Protein backbone atom coordinates (compact mmCIF):
# COMPACT_ATOMS: atom_id res chain seq x y z
CA UNK A 1 0.00 0.00 0.00
CA UNK A 2 2.78 2.33 1.00
CA UNK A 3 4.70 1.65 -2.15
CA UNK A 4 1.57 2.15 -4.24
CA UNK A 5 1.24 5.61 -2.74
CA UNK A 6 4.85 6.34 -3.59
CA UNK A 7 4.29 5.30 -7.19
CA UNK A 8 1.18 7.42 -7.43
CA UNK A 9 3.08 10.39 -6.06
CA UNK A 10 6.05 9.90 -8.40
CA UNK A 11 3.78 9.62 -11.41
CA UNK A 12 1.61 12.57 -10.42
CA UNK A 13 4.69 14.71 -9.87
CA UNK A 14 6.30 13.79 -13.19
CA UNK A 15 2.95 14.30 -14.95
CA UNK A 16 2.51 17.74 -13.43
CA UNK A 17 5.98 18.89 -14.37
CA UNK A 18 5.41 17.79 -17.96
CA UNK A 19 2.06 19.56 -18.11
CA UNK A 20 3.59 22.73 -16.71
CA UNK A 21 6.48 22.86 -19.14
CA UNK A 22 4.54 21.86 -22.26
CA UNK A 23 1.02 23.31 -22.07
CA UNK A 24 2.00 26.77 -23.32
CA UNK A 25 4.01 25.25 -26.15
CA UNK A 26 1.14 22.93 -27.06
CA UNK A 27 -1.34 25.80 -27.27
CA UNK A 28 0.91 27.83 -29.52
CA UNK A 29 1.74 24.83 -31.69
CA UNK A 30 -1.83 23.56 -31.93
CA UNK A 31 -3.22 26.97 -32.69
CA UNK A 32 -0.68 28.50 -35.01
CA UNK A 33 1.60 25.63 -36.05
CA UNK A 34 4.46 27.63 -34.62
CA UNK A 35 7.06 25.59 -32.79
CA UNK A 36 8.47 27.94 -30.22
CA UNK A 37 12.05 26.84 -29.59
CA UNK A 38 12.33 29.62 -27.03
CA UNK A 39 9.80 27.81 -24.84
CA UNK A 40 12.54 26.89 -22.37
CA UNK A 41 13.65 30.51 -22.17
CA UNK A 42 10.08 31.69 -21.62
CA UNK A 43 10.04 29.34 -18.62
CA UNK A 44 13.36 30.81 -17.55
CA UNK A 45 11.99 34.34 -17.86
CA UNK A 46 9.00 33.40 -15.69
CA UNK A 47 11.38 31.99 -13.11
CA UNK A 48 13.44 35.19 -13.09
CA UNK A 49 10.34 37.37 -12.74
CA UNK A 50 9.36 35.20 -9.80
CA UNK A 51 12.77 35.76 -8.19
CA UNK A 52 12.58 39.48 -8.92
CA UNK A 53 9.13 39.93 -7.42
CA UNK A 54 9.98 37.75 -4.43
CA UNK A 55 13.05 39.85 -3.75
CA UNK A 56 10.71 42.83 -3.67
CA UNK A 57 9.04 41.12 -0.75
CA UNK A 58 5.88 39.82 -2.42
CA UNK A 59 4.51 36.45 -1.33
CA UNK A 60 4.55 33.53 -3.73
CA UNK A 61 0.83 33.49 -4.45
CA UNK A 62 1.19 36.98 -5.90
CA UNK A 63 4.56 36.59 -7.58
CA UNK A 64 3.55 33.54 -9.62
CA UNK A 65 0.53 35.12 -11.38
CA UNK A 66 2.46 38.37 -11.78
CA UNK A 67 5.32 36.50 -13.43
CA UNK A 68 2.78 34.84 -15.72
CA UNK A 69 1.35 38.21 -16.73
CA UNK A 70 4.81 39.67 -17.32
CA UNK A 71 5.86 36.79 -19.57
CA UNK A 72 2.50 37.00 -21.33
CA UNK A 73 3.18 40.66 -22.11
CA UNK A 74 6.65 39.73 -23.31
CA UNK A 75 5.08 37.07 -25.53
CA UNK A 76 2.80 39.66 -27.10
CA UNK A 77 5.79 41.86 -27.86
CA UNK A 78 7.66 38.94 -29.44
CA UNK A 79 4.60 38.01 -31.49
CA UNK A 80 4.15 41.56 -32.80
CA UNK A 81 7.82 42.19 -33.57
CA UNK A 82 8.88 38.82 -34.97
CA UNK A 83 6.41 35.96 -35.15
CA UNK A 84 3.56 37.73 -36.94
CA UNK A 85 5.70 38.12 -40.05
CA UNK A 86 6.39 34.42 -40.19
CA UNK A 87 3.00 32.69 -40.17
CA UNK A 88 2.89 29.78 -42.56
CA UNK A 89 6.70 29.50 -42.59
CA UNK A 90 7.08 26.75 -39.97
CA UNK A 91 10.83 26.41 -40.33
CA UNK A 92 11.50 30.11 -40.26
CA UNK A 93 9.62 30.36 -36.98
CA UNK A 94 11.83 27.57 -35.70
CA UNK A 95 14.91 29.53 -36.62
CA UNK A 96 13.60 32.87 -35.36
CA UNK A 97 12.55 31.42 -32.02
CA UNK A 98 15.95 29.75 -31.73
CA UNK A 99 17.43 33.20 -32.22
CA UNK A 100 15.12 34.60 -29.55
CA UNK A 101 16.17 31.85 -27.19
CA UNK A 102 19.88 32.59 -27.64
CA UNK A 103 19.21 36.27 -27.28
CA UNK A 104 17.29 35.79 -24.05
CA UNK A 105 20.00 33.59 -22.52
CA UNK A 106 22.55 36.26 -23.39
CA UNK A 107 20.57 39.15 -22.05
CA UNK A 108 19.60 37.48 -18.78
CA UNK A 109 23.20 36.40 -18.16
CA UNK A 110 24.34 39.96 -18.80
CA UNK A 111 21.77 41.45 -16.45
CA UNK A 112 21.50 38.88 -13.68
CA UNK A 113 24.76 36.96 -13.99
CA UNK A 114 25.28 33.27 -14.70
CA UNK A 115 24.56 31.93 -11.25
CA UNK A 116 21.25 30.40 -10.29
CA UNK A 117 18.80 32.00 -7.90
CA UNK A 118 16.23 30.54 -5.64
CA UNK A 119 13.20 31.52 -3.69
CA UNK A 120 12.74 29.69 -0.45
CA UNK A 121 9.16 28.79 0.38
CA UNK A 122 8.67 26.92 3.59
CA UNK A 123 5.49 24.92 3.28
CA UNK A 124 6.87 22.01 5.25
CA UNK A 125 7.01 18.36 4.31
CA UNK A 126 4.21 15.91 3.82
CA UNK A 127 4.38 12.21 4.29
CA UNK A 128 3.43 9.94 1.41
CA UNK A 129 3.58 6.23 2.03
CA UNK A 130 6.07 6.70 4.85
CA UNK A 131 8.36 9.00 2.87
CA UNK A 132 8.73 12.72 3.30
CA UNK A 133 8.04 14.67 0.13
CA UNK A 134 8.17 18.43 -0.29
CA UNK A 135 4.93 20.08 0.71
CA UNK A 136 5.57 22.27 -2.26
CA UNK A 137 5.06 19.39 -4.67
CA UNK A 138 1.39 19.47 -3.73
CA UNK A 139 1.38 23.07 -4.95
CA UNK A 140 3.03 22.01 -8.20
CA UNK A 141 0.46 19.27 -8.77
CA UNK A 142 -2.36 21.63 -7.92
CA UNK A 143 -0.82 24.28 -10.20
CA UNK A 144 -0.82 21.87 -13.14
CA UNK A 145 -4.44 20.93 -12.53
CA UNK A 146 -5.50 24.56 -12.22
CA UNK A 147 -3.69 25.47 -15.42
CA UNK A 148 -5.43 22.67 -17.31
CA UNK A 149 -8.84 23.46 -15.84
CA UNK A 150 -8.44 27.19 -16.38
CA UNK A 151 -7.44 26.76 -20.00
CA UNK A 152 -10.35 24.38 -20.52
CA UNK A 153 -12.79 26.81 -18.94
CA UNK A 154 -11.62 29.75 -21.03
CA UNK A 155 -11.60 27.70 -24.21
CA UNK A 156 -14.93 26.04 -23.58
CA UNK A 157 -17.12 28.58 -21.86
CA UNK A 158 -16.09 32.04 -23.00
CA UNK A 159 -16.86 33.79 -26.23
CA UNK A 160 -13.21 34.43 -26.77
CA UNK A 161 -12.53 30.72 -26.39
CA UNK A 162 -15.11 29.97 -29.05
CA UNK A 163 -13.54 32.41 -31.48
CA UNK A 164 -10.09 31.04 -30.74
CA UNK A 165 -11.19 27.47 -31.34
CA UNK A 166 -12.97 28.52 -34.49
CA UNK A 167 -9.87 30.23 -35.80
CA UNK A 168 -7.85 27.18 -34.95
CA UNK A 169 -10.13 24.86 -36.93
CA UNK A 170 -10.67 27.08 -39.92
CA UNK A 171 -8.88 30.41 -40.12
CA UNK A 172 -10.35 31.34 -43.53
CA UNK A 173 -13.88 30.83 -42.31
CA UNK A 174 -13.29 32.89 -39.16
CA UNK A 175 -11.81 35.65 -41.21
CA UNK A 176 -14.82 35.56 -43.51
CA UNK A 177 -17.04 35.86 -40.44
CA UNK A 178 -15.27 39.05 -39.51
CA UNK A 179 -12.78 37.82 -36.91
CA UNK A 180 -9.48 39.64 -36.79
CA UNK A 181 -7.35 36.48 -36.88
CA UNK A 182 -4.14 38.43 -36.47
CA UNK A 183 -5.36 39.67 -33.10
CA UNK A 184 -6.46 36.16 -32.14
CA UNK A 185 -3.01 34.83 -32.96
CA UNK A 186 -1.46 37.56 -30.88
CA UNK A 187 -3.75 36.71 -28.01
CA UNK A 188 -3.02 33.00 -28.25
CA UNK A 189 0.70 33.55 -28.35
CA UNK A 190 0.46 35.85 -25.35
CA UNK A 191 -1.75 33.39 -23.50
CA UNK A 192 0.58 30.47 -24.21
CA UNK A 193 3.53 32.57 -23.09
CA UNK A 194 1.71 33.55 -19.90
CA UNK A 195 1.05 29.89 -19.07
CA UNK A 196 4.71 29.12 -19.67
CA UNK A 197 5.80 32.03 -17.49
CA UNK A 198 3.44 30.89 -14.78
CA UNK A 199 4.96 27.41 -14.94
CA UNK A 200 8.50 28.76 -14.78
CA UNK A 201 7.63 30.79 -11.71
CA UNK A 202 5.94 27.82 -10.04
CA UNK A 203 9.02 25.66 -10.52
CA UNK A 204 11.46 28.08 -8.87
CA UNK A 205 11.27 26.91 -5.24
CA UNK A 206 12.25 23.35 -6.19
CA UNK A 207 14.33 23.90 -9.31
CA UNK A 208 15.72 27.42 -9.06
CA UNK A 209 16.27 29.93 -11.84
CA UNK A 210 19.37 30.10 -14.02
CA UNK A 211 19.97 31.51 -17.51
CA UNK A 212 20.56 28.13 -19.15
CA UNK A 213 17.75 26.24 -17.43
CA UNK A 214 15.60 26.31 -20.58
CA UNK A 215 17.76 23.68 -22.24
CA UNK A 216 16.81 21.19 -19.53
CA UNK A 217 13.16 21.35 -20.46
CA UNK A 218 12.88 22.15 -24.14
CA UNK A 219 13.40 18.65 -25.53
CA UNK A 220 10.93 17.11 -23.09
CA UNK A 221 8.31 19.75 -23.82
CA UNK A 222 8.91 19.37 -27.53
CA UNK A 223 8.45 15.61 -27.46
CA UNK A 224 5.34 15.82 -25.31
CA UNK A 225 3.76 18.35 -27.66
CA UNK A 226 4.59 16.46 -30.85
CA UNK A 227 3.31 13.19 -29.38
CA UNK A 228 0.21 14.92 -28.14
CA UNK A 229 -0.77 16.01 -31.61
CA UNK A 230 -2.88 18.90 -32.82
CA UNK A 231 -5.34 19.27 -29.95
CA UNK A 232 -3.49 21.03 -27.16
CA UNK A 233 -5.44 20.13 -24.06
CA UNK A 234 -6.23 16.47 -24.67
CA UNK A 235 -2.85 16.05 -26.32
CA UNK A 236 -0.94 17.52 -23.39
CA UNK A 237 -2.89 15.53 -20.83
CA UNK A 238 -2.48 12.22 -22.63
CA UNK A 239 1.17 12.68 -23.60
CA UNK A 240 2.13 13.97 -20.16
CA UNK A 241 0.22 11.11 -18.58
CA UNK A 242 1.99 8.54 -20.71
CA UNK A 243 5.51 9.94 -20.37
CA UNK A 244 5.06 11.08 -16.79
CA UNK A 245 3.93 7.58 -15.90
CA UNK A 246 6.90 5.93 -17.56
CA UNK A 247 9.38 8.44 -16.16
CA UNK A 248 7.94 8.37 -12.64
CA UNK A 249 7.98 4.58 -12.34
CA UNK A 250 11.27 3.83 -14.10
CA UNK A 251 13.13 6.65 -12.34
CA UNK A 252 12.01 5.42 -8.96
CA UNK A 253 12.70 1.77 -9.74
CA UNK A 254 16.03 2.26 -11.47
CA UNK A 255 17.50 5.66 -12.22
CA UNK A 256 16.52 9.03 -13.68
CA UNK A 257 18.62 8.51 -16.79
CA UNK A 258 16.95 5.21 -17.61
CA UNK A 259 13.59 6.89 -17.11
CA UNK A 260 14.45 9.55 -19.66
CA UNK A 261 15.83 7.11 -22.19
CA UNK A 262 12.68 4.98 -21.88
CA UNK A 263 10.55 8.04 -22.50
CA UNK A 264 12.49 8.83 -25.66
CA UNK A 265 12.26 5.24 -26.91
CA UNK A 266 8.53 5.12 -26.31
CA UNK A 267 8.27 8.47 -28.09
CA UNK A 268 9.88 6.97 -31.19
CA UNK A 269 7.55 3.99 -31.10
CA UNK A 270 4.58 6.29 -30.65
CA UNK A 271 5.54 8.45 -33.58
CA UNK A 272 5.90 5.37 -35.75
CA UNK A 273 2.46 4.08 -34.77
CA UNK A 274 0.67 7.41 -34.51
CA UNK A 275 2.71 9.73 -36.68
CA UNK A 276 0.34 12.62 -36.18
CA UNK A 277 0.29 12.32 -32.44
CA UNK A 278 -2.19 10.84 -30.02
CA UNK A 279 -4.91 13.25 -31.03
CA UNK A 280 -3.97 13.19 -34.70
CA UNK A 281 -7.06 11.34 -35.86
CA UNK A 282 -9.57 13.25 -33.82
CA UNK A 283 -11.90 15.37 -35.88
CA UNK A 284 -12.96 17.46 -32.95
CA UNK A 285 -11.13 18.28 -29.81
CA UNK A 286 -9.82 20.91 -27.51
Amino acid at each position, binding site marked *: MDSLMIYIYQVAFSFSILVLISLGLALIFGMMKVIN*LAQGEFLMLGAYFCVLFSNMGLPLWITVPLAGLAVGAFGVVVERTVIQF*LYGRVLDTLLATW*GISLFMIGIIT*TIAGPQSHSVSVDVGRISVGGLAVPGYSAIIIAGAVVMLAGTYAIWRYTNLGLIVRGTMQNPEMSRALGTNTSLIYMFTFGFGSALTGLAGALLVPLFGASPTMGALYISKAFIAVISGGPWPLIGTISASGLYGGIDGVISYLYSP*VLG*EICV*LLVAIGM*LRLLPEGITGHMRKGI
Partner: protein
Amino acid sequence: MLGYLFRDFRRPASERPSIVWWVFVALLAATLVYLPHQLGLAGLMDLSVIFVLALLALSMSFLWGYIGMLSFGQTVFFGMGGYVYAVAAMNWGTTTLPFLLGILLPMAFAVLLGFFMIYGRLSDIYFSVMTLVLTLILNKAMRATSGSQFVVGDVRLNGQNGIPGVPPLQVPWNPTVTLFIDHVYYLSGAILILVYVGLRLLLTTPFGRIMVGVRENEKRIELLGYNSRRYKLVAFVLSGGLAGLSGTLFAIWGNFVAPEMFGLGRAAEVIIWVIVGGKATLIGPIVGVGLIQYLTTWLGMQGVGQVTLILGMILIIFVLLFKEGLVPTVGNLLVRVLGVKSNDAAKKRDHK
Protein backbone atom coordinates in the same frame (compact mmCIF):
# COMPACT_ATOMS: atom_id res chain seq x y z
CA MET B 1 31.26 37.37 -64.25
CA LEU B 2 30.07 37.40 -60.65
CA GLY B 3 26.53 37.99 -61.79
CA TYR B 4 26.71 35.04 -64.17
CA LEU B 5 28.11 32.91 -61.42
CA PHE B 6 25.26 33.74 -59.08
CA ARG B 7 22.82 33.10 -61.88
CA ASP B 8 24.40 29.70 -62.17
CA PHE B 9 23.97 29.05 -58.45
CA ARG B 10 20.30 29.71 -58.85
CA ARG B 11 19.76 27.73 -61.99
CA PRO B 12 17.48 24.72 -61.75
CA ALA B 13 19.75 22.06 -60.40
CA SER B 14 18.95 19.69 -63.20
CA GLU B 15 20.80 21.84 -65.72
CA ARG B 16 24.41 21.22 -66.46
CA PRO B 17 26.60 23.80 -64.79
CA SER B 18 28.01 26.46 -67.06
CA ILE B 19 31.62 27.09 -67.89
CA VAL B 20 31.61 30.03 -65.47
CA TRP B 21 30.82 27.61 -62.68
CA TRP B 22 33.71 25.34 -63.63
CA VAL B 23 36.01 28.36 -63.60
CA PHE B 24 34.68 29.14 -60.14
CA VAL B 25 35.46 25.62 -58.91
CA ALA B 26 38.94 25.84 -60.38
CA LEU B 27 39.46 29.16 -58.60
CA LEU B 28 38.28 27.59 -55.35
CA ALA B 29 40.81 24.81 -55.75
CA ALA B 30 43.55 27.29 -56.53
CA THR B 31 42.69 29.34 -53.44
CA LEU B 32 42.81 26.20 -51.38
CA VAL B 33 46.36 25.55 -52.50
CA TYR B 34 47.39 29.19 -52.19
CA LEU B 35 46.02 29.97 -48.70
CA PRO B 36 48.57 28.04 -46.62
CA HIS B 37 51.16 30.51 -47.83
CA GLN B 38 49.14 33.29 -46.25
CA LEU B 39 47.76 31.77 -43.08
CA GLY B 40 49.56 30.23 -40.16
CA LEU B 41 48.72 26.77 -38.89
CA ALA B 42 46.11 28.18 -36.52
CA GLY B 43 44.32 29.82 -39.44
CA LEU B 44 44.42 26.57 -41.38
CA MET B 45 42.95 24.76 -38.42
CA ASP B 46 40.07 27.24 -38.23
CA LEU B 47 39.47 26.83 -41.96
CA SER B 48 39.63 23.02 -41.81
CA VAL B 49 36.88 22.80 -39.25
CA ILE B 50 34.75 25.00 -41.48
CA PHE B 51 35.35 22.60 -44.38
CA VAL B 52 34.52 19.62 -42.18
CA LEU B 53 31.30 21.12 -40.85
CA ALA B 54 30.37 22.29 -44.35
CA LEU B 55 30.11 18.62 -45.30
CA LEU B 56 27.60 18.18 -42.51
CA ALA B 57 25.65 21.21 -43.72
CA LEU B 58 25.71 19.84 -47.28
CA SER B 59 24.43 16.48 -46.11
CA MET B 60 21.41 18.24 -44.73
CA SER B 61 20.77 20.79 -47.47
CA PHE B 62 21.11 18.14 -50.17
CA LEU B 63 18.37 16.12 -48.51
CA TRP B 64 16.20 19.08 -47.64
CA GLY B 65 16.75 21.36 -50.61
CA TYR B 66 16.55 18.73 -53.32
CA ILE B 67 14.26 15.92 -52.22
CA GLY B 68 12.38 17.89 -49.60
CA MET B 69 13.16 15.76 -46.53
CA LEU B 70 14.13 17.85 -43.51
CA SER B 71 16.27 15.73 -41.24
CA PHE B 72 16.73 17.58 -37.99
CA GLY B 73 19.09 14.90 -36.79
CA GLN B 74 21.92 14.63 -39.30
CA THR B 75 24.02 14.78 -36.13
CA VAL B 76 23.04 11.14 -35.57
CA PHE B 77 25.33 10.16 -38.44
CA PHE B 78 27.86 12.90 -37.67
CA GLY B 79 28.38 11.65 -34.13
CA MET B 80 28.26 8.04 -35.18
CA GLY B 81 30.95 8.60 -37.82
CA GLY B 82 33.19 10.27 -35.27
CA TYR B 83 32.73 7.59 -32.63
CA VAL B 84 33.15 4.72 -35.08
CA TYR B 85 36.41 6.16 -36.34
CA ALA B 86 37.68 6.89 -32.83
CA VAL B 87 36.86 3.50 -31.38
CA ALA B 88 38.04 1.51 -34.39
CA ALA B 89 41.26 3.46 -34.87
CA MET B 90 42.17 3.26 -31.20
CA ASN B 91 41.51 -0.47 -31.10
CA TRP B 92 43.26 -1.46 -34.28
CA GLY B 93 46.07 1.07 -34.42
CA THR B 94 45.43 1.56 -38.13
CA THR B 95 43.25 4.28 -39.58
CA THR B 96 42.33 3.50 -43.19
CA LEU B 97 39.65 0.93 -42.44
CA PRO B 98 38.25 2.97 -39.51
CA PHE B 99 38.00 5.97 -41.84
CA LEU B 100 35.93 3.93 -44.29
CA LEU B 101 33.84 2.46 -41.49
CA GLY B 102 33.16 5.98 -40.25
CA ILE B 103 31.31 6.49 -43.53
CA LEU B 104 29.88 3.02 -44.11
CA LEU B 105 28.39 2.30 -40.68
CA PRO B 106 26.36 5.51 -40.60
CA MET B 107 25.15 4.59 -44.11
CA ALA B 108 24.11 1.15 -42.91
CA PHE B 109 22.29 2.73 -40.01
CA ALA B 110 20.61 5.12 -42.44
CA VAL B 111 19.35 2.11 -44.43
CA LEU B 112 17.74 0.68 -41.29
CA LEU B 113 16.28 3.99 -40.24
CA GLY B 114 15.14 4.71 -43.75
CA PHE B 115 13.20 1.46 -43.94
CA PHE B 116 11.63 2.24 -40.62
CA MET B 117 10.65 5.79 -41.43
CA ILE B 118 10.37 6.24 -45.19
CA TYR B 119 8.66 2.92 -45.83
CA GLY B 120 6.53 3.62 -42.78
CA ARG B 121 5.24 6.66 -44.69
CA LEU B 122 6.10 9.07 -41.96
CA SER B 123 4.95 12.53 -42.95
CA ASP B 124 7.32 15.47 -43.31
CA ILE B 125 7.37 17.14 -39.94
CA TYR B 126 7.30 13.81 -38.12
CA PHE B 127 10.27 12.62 -40.09
CA SER B 128 12.09 15.71 -38.82
CA VAL B 129 10.99 15.17 -35.26
CA MET B 130 11.88 11.48 -35.32
CA THR B 131 15.43 12.19 -36.42
CA LEU B 132 15.69 14.87 -33.74
CA VAL B 133 14.46 12.53 -31.02
CA LEU B 134 16.94 9.94 -32.19
CA THR B 135 19.87 12.29 -31.88
CA LEU B 136 18.69 13.25 -28.39
CA ILE B 137 18.56 9.57 -27.42
CA LEU B 138 22.05 8.91 -28.72
CA ASN B 139 23.27 12.01 -26.91
CA LYS B 140 21.74 10.83 -23.63
CA ALA B 141 22.92 7.29 -24.12
CA MET B 142 26.50 8.34 -24.86
CA ARG B 143 26.48 10.61 -21.82
CA ALA B 144 25.46 7.65 -19.70
CA THR B 145 28.59 5.66 -20.55
CA SER B 146 31.00 7.13 -18.01
CA GLY B 147 31.34 3.90 -16.08
CA SER B 148 34.34 1.64 -16.58
CA GLN B 149 32.00 -1.14 -17.77
CA PHE B 150 31.31 0.71 -21.03
CA VAL B 151 34.20 -0.46 -23.14
CA VAL B 152 34.42 -1.30 -26.81
CA GLY B 153 37.49 -3.45 -27.31
CA ASP B 154 40.14 -1.57 -25.34
CA VAL B 155 38.52 1.82 -25.58
CA ARG B 156 36.49 3.41 -22.79
CA LEU B 157 33.50 5.31 -24.14
CA ASN B 158 33.95 7.78 -21.30
CA GLY B 159 30.47 9.30 -21.25
CA GLN B 160 30.17 13.05 -20.95
CA ASN B 161 33.91 13.56 -21.28
CA GLY B 162 34.13 11.92 -24.64
CA ILE B 163 37.20 10.15 -25.96
CA PRO B 164 40.37 12.25 -26.07
CA GLY B 165 43.51 11.40 -28.00
CA VAL B 166 41.84 10.07 -31.15
CA PRO B 167 44.71 9.09 -33.43
CA PRO B 168 45.48 11.22 -36.50
CA LEU B 169 44.97 9.74 -39.93
CA GLN B 170 47.83 7.68 -41.31
CA VAL B 171 48.83 7.67 -44.93
CA PRO B 172 47.29 4.37 -46.16
CA TRP B 173 50.41 3.14 -47.97
CA ASN B 174 52.81 4.32 -45.31
CA PRO B 175 51.29 4.08 -41.80
CA THR B 176 54.30 5.61 -40.11
CA VAL B 177 53.40 9.00 -41.59
CA THR B 178 50.43 10.72 -39.95
CA LEU B 179 48.58 13.77 -41.15
CA PHE B 180 49.51 17.07 -39.53
CA ILE B 181 47.32 20.19 -39.32
CA ASP B 182 48.13 21.41 -42.82
CA HIS B 183 47.55 17.96 -44.31
CA VAL B 184 44.16 17.76 -42.65
CA TYR B 185 43.45 21.14 -44.22
CA TYR B 186 44.27 19.91 -47.71
CA LEU B 187 42.39 16.67 -47.18
CA SER B 188 39.20 18.26 -45.88
CA GLY B 189 39.34 21.05 -48.46
CA ALA B 190 39.79 18.59 -51.31
CA ILE B 191 37.00 16.36 -50.03
CA LEU B 192 34.69 19.33 -49.71
CA ILE B 193 35.31 20.47 -53.27
CA LEU B 194 34.89 16.93 -54.59
CA VAL B 195 31.65 16.45 -52.69
CA TYR B 196 30.36 19.82 -53.86
CA VAL B 197 31.11 19.04 -57.49
CA GLY B 198 29.85 15.49 -57.10
CA LEU B 199 26.50 16.55 -55.67
CA ARG B 200 26.13 19.26 -58.30
CA LEU B 201 26.68 16.75 -61.07
CA LEU B 202 24.49 14.14 -59.41
CA LEU B 203 21.60 16.55 -59.61
CA THR B 204 21.94 16.74 -63.39
CA THR B 205 21.54 12.98 -63.78
CA PRO B 206 18.13 11.33 -64.23
CA PHE B 207 18.36 10.32 -60.57
CA GLY B 208 18.79 13.93 -59.53
CA ARG B 209 15.90 15.07 -61.69
CA ILE B 210 13.58 12.54 -60.12
CA MET B 211 14.76 13.63 -56.69
CA VAL B 212 13.71 17.18 -57.42
CA GLY B 213 10.48 15.82 -58.85
CA VAL B 214 9.75 14.05 -55.58
CA ARG B 215 10.28 17.34 -53.77
CA GLU B 216 7.93 19.17 -56.11
CA ASN B 217 5.19 16.59 -56.28
CA GLU B 218 5.67 13.15 -54.87
CA LYS B 219 2.25 11.87 -56.00
CA ARG B 220 2.87 12.80 -59.59
CA ILE B 221 6.25 11.10 -59.60
CA GLU B 222 4.65 7.93 -58.28
CA LEU B 223 1.90 8.10 -60.89
CA LEU B 224 4.62 8.33 -63.50
CA GLY B 225 5.71 4.92 -62.33
CA TYR B 226 8.71 5.77 -60.16
CA ASN B 227 9.11 4.28 -56.73
CA SER B 228 9.54 7.56 -54.87
CA ARG B 229 10.34 5.83 -51.60
CA ARG B 230 13.32 4.14 -53.12
CA TYR B 231 14.66 7.52 -54.23
CA LYS B 232 14.09 8.95 -50.81
CA LEU B 233 15.87 6.03 -49.21
CA VAL B 234 18.88 6.32 -51.49
CA ALA B 235 19.11 10.07 -50.89
CA PHE B 236 18.81 9.54 -47.15
CA VAL B 237 21.56 6.92 -47.14
CA LEU B 238 23.82 9.13 -49.24
CA SER B 239 23.34 12.04 -46.90
CA GLY B 240 23.92 9.77 -43.90
CA GLY B 241 27.23 8.74 -45.42
CA LEU B 242 28.13 12.36 -46.00
CA ALA B 243 27.35 13.29 -42.41
CA GLY B 244 29.34 10.26 -41.27
CA LEU B 245 32.29 11.43 -43.37
CA SER B 246 32.00 14.84 -41.74
CA GLY B 247 31.99 13.30 -38.26
CA THR B 248 35.00 11.13 -39.08
CA LEU B 249 36.92 14.14 -40.33
CA PHE B 250 35.86 16.10 -37.24
CA ALA B 251 37.37 13.42 -35.01
CA ILE B 252 40.56 13.53 -37.07
CA TRP B 253 40.61 17.33 -36.99
CA GLY B 254 40.21 17.80 -33.24
CA ASN B 255 41.57 14.45 -31.98
CA PHE B 256 38.52 14.05 -29.79
CA VAL B 257 34.92 12.91 -29.93
CA ALA B 258 32.28 13.78 -27.35
CA PRO B 259 28.53 13.35 -26.89
CA GLU B 260 28.03 17.00 -27.78
CA MET B 261 28.45 15.84 -31.40
CA PHE B 262 24.94 14.40 -31.04
CA GLY B 263 23.59 17.34 -29.05
CA LEU B 264 20.60 19.56 -29.63
CA GLY B 265 22.94 22.55 -29.93
CA ARG B 266 24.85 21.07 -32.83
CA ALA B 267 21.66 19.78 -34.49
CA ALA B 268 20.16 23.25 -34.42
CA GLU B 269 23.40 24.80 -35.61
CA VAL B 270 23.23 22.70 -38.78
CA ILE B 271 19.81 24.12 -39.60
CA ILE B 272 21.04 27.62 -38.87
CA TRP B 273 23.99 27.24 -41.26
CA VAL B 274 21.73 25.98 -44.01
CA ILE B 275 19.08 28.65 -43.58
CA VAL B 276 21.54 31.51 -43.22
CA GLY B 277 23.40 30.41 -46.33
CA GLY B 278 20.33 29.47 -48.33
CA LYS B 279 19.04 25.95 -48.74
CA ALA B 280 18.09 26.16 -52.38
CA THR B 281 21.72 26.14 -53.45
CA LEU B 282 24.63 23.89 -52.67
CA ILE B 283 27.08 26.72 -52.14
CA GLY B 284 24.78 28.48 -49.65
CA PRO B 285 25.24 26.08 -46.74
CA ILE B 286 29.01 26.18 -47.20
CA VAL B 287 28.93 29.96 -46.97
CA GLY B 288 26.59 29.69 -43.96
CA VAL B 289 29.00 27.44 -42.07
CA GLY B 290 31.92 29.69 -42.84
CA LEU B 291 30.12 32.80 -41.73
CA ILE B 292 28.67 31.48 -38.48
CA GLN B 293 31.81 29.60 -37.46
CA TYR B 294 34.02 32.58 -38.19
CA LEU B 295 31.70 34.84 -36.26
CA THR B 296 31.59 32.52 -33.25
CA THR B 297 35.36 32.20 -33.12
CA TRP B 298 35.90 35.90 -33.67
CA LEU B 299 33.33 36.99 -31.08
CA GLY B 300 34.96 34.73 -28.49
CA MET B 301 38.03 36.93 -28.66
CA GLN B 302 36.35 40.31 -28.65
CA GLY B 303 35.37 40.55 -25.01
CA VAL B 304 31.84 41.39 -26.08
CA GLY B 305 30.33 39.64 -23.12
CA GLN B 306 27.64 37.19 -24.05
CA VAL B 307 28.29 35.78 -27.52
CA THR B 308 24.86 34.13 -27.65
CA LEU B 309 23.21 37.53 -27.44
CA ILE B 310 24.78 38.64 -30.70
CA LEU B 311 24.29 35.31 -32.48
CA GLY B 312 20.64 35.39 -31.46
CA MET B 313 20.13 38.85 -32.92
CA ILE B 314 21.81 37.87 -36.17
CA LEU B 315 19.47 34.91 -36.54
CA ILE B 316 16.35 36.93 -35.94
CA ILE B 317 17.47 39.54 -38.44
CA PHE B 318 18.24 36.90 -41.03
CA VAL B 319 14.88 35.23 -40.76
CA LEU B 320 13.04 38.51 -41.00
CA LEU B 321 15.08 40.20 -43.72
CA PHE B 322 16.83 37.52 -45.77
CA LYS B 323 14.11 34.95 -46.23
CA GLU B 324 15.92 32.78 -48.72
CA GLY B 325 19.31 32.95 -47.11
CA LEU B 326 22.40 34.89 -47.94
CA VAL B 327 23.53 33.40 -51.24
CA PRO B 328 20.18 33.65 -53.08
CA THR B 329 19.53 37.12 -51.69
CA VAL B 330 22.93 38.46 -52.68
CA GLY B 331 22.60 36.62 -55.95
CA ASN B 332 19.29 38.27 -56.78
CA LEU B 333 20.74 41.62 -55.93
CA LEU B 334 23.82 41.13 -58.08
CA VAL B 335 21.85 39.77 -60.96
CA ARG B 336 19.63 42.81 -60.86
CA VAL B 337 22.39 45.37 -60.36
CA LEU B 338 24.72 43.90 -62.96
CA GLY B 339 21.89 43.49 -65.41
CA VAL B 340 22.50 39.85 -66.17
CA LYS B 341 19.62 38.15 -67.91
CA SER B 342 17.34 37.20 -65.08
CA ASN B 343 16.89 33.68 -63.90
CA ASP B 344 13.30 33.53 -64.99
CA ALA B 345 14.22 34.50 -68.51
CA ALA B 346 16.92 31.87 -68.49
CA LYS B 347 14.48 29.34 -67.19
CA LYS B 348 11.94 30.18 -69.88
CA ARG B 349 14.54 29.89 -72.54
CA ASP B 350 15.67 26.53 -71.25
CA HIS B 351 12.19 25.17 -71.13
CA LYS B 352 11.60 25.78 -74.81
